[in-house]
């Protein structure tokens, strides 16, 4: 029987778009599956470096622009990312349906310098407390998965079995389950609310 006490929401893919989706849209204006495989693989590896803080947001943009031979400047790409990040439909309303007895955490895979303007513009702090915010880039992780799971469990001061993670990335959600957390694959807010309801988490 689950006794969830802390719920962790990934910023990219659950609350707002994942970074790669925004970047590919700005660089190519078409879905990622239409991009040549070499550039897709390159961007896929590069984003991992950003996630764990091996490179900062500006460097990431510079390298992505260079690899994709875009006419954009890295600074412009950064600006577009922070300006065009948008909430997933009904997501904050869905998060707000959770009783206050649950600790709500936000895992930001966006670097801090991108997160701040986005959070202010989208009013994320109306839903998440600043002290329950984790930047993957600041955790000194060797690798994102599974290290991030143990980091967030430690930060929340909860038992791993009492932690739940909401993730749009299926392999990561599966890894979370394998490491003892509860996890839900995020598809949309409606389905997430149904999942909370099935788990009898709503008041």
């Amino acid at each position, binding site marked *: 029987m689950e006794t969830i006490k802390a719920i962790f929401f990934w910023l990219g893919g659950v609350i707002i778009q994942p970074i790669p989706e925004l970047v590919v849209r700005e660089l190519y204006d078409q879905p*990622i*599956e*239409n991009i040549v*495989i070499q550039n897709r693989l390159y961007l896929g590896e590069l984003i991992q470096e950003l996630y764990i803080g091996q490179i900062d947001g500006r460097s990431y943009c510079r390298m992505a622009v260079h690899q994709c031979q875009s006419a954009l400047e890295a600074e412009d790409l950064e600006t577009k990312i922070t300006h065009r990040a948008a909430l997933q439909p009904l997501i904050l309303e869905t998060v707000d349906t959770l009783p206050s007895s649950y600790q709500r955490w936000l895992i930001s895979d966006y670097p801090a310098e991108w997160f701040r303007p986005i959070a202010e513009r989208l009013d994320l702090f109306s839903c998440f407390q600043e002290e329950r915010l984790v930047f993957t880039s600041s955790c000194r992780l060797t690798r994102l998965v599974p290290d991030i799971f143990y980091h967030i469990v430690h930060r929340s001061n909860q038992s791993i079995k009492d932690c739940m993670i909401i993730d749009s990335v*299926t392999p990561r959600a*599966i890894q979370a389950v394998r490491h003892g957390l509860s*996890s*839900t*694959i995020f*598809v949309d807010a409606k389905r997430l609310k149904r999942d909370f309801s099935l788990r009898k988490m709503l008041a």
Partner: protein
Amino acid sequence: MFYTKQIVLDTAGNFSVVNVTDQVRDFVTSTGVKHGQVLVFYKHTTGAVIIGEHEAGIIADLQDMFERIAPVLHDYKHHLKGVDFNGHAHMRSTLMTINVTIPILEGELLLGNYQEILVIDDQTEPAPRHLVIQVSGE
């Protein structure tokens, strides 16, 4: 009438699961077909299309089951060919389905509450994966 669309999926392989329910639903809607069926067909021999629940625990259990039946590390005869070493993926693919058919009524997919259309890519390296969606009806 028949309406056919091919899509390319971006997956990392190694039992990646992609939920294509919304893409199928959107295509059905775009055709205007009210009564008929939609075929979803996977154009590879190292993966599958299934109807299932997109839930992390179920997928982990499915992976575990296939690891018992057709483990990644095994002396598959296919490997003697020396081209690739994905015998497990071929075996697993034959045990699953490479296509599913869903009825359409009043323009809607007749899926159950927890049924979703999932593509499983078990190729050992990332590569473009092709899927055919074919709507027939009126």
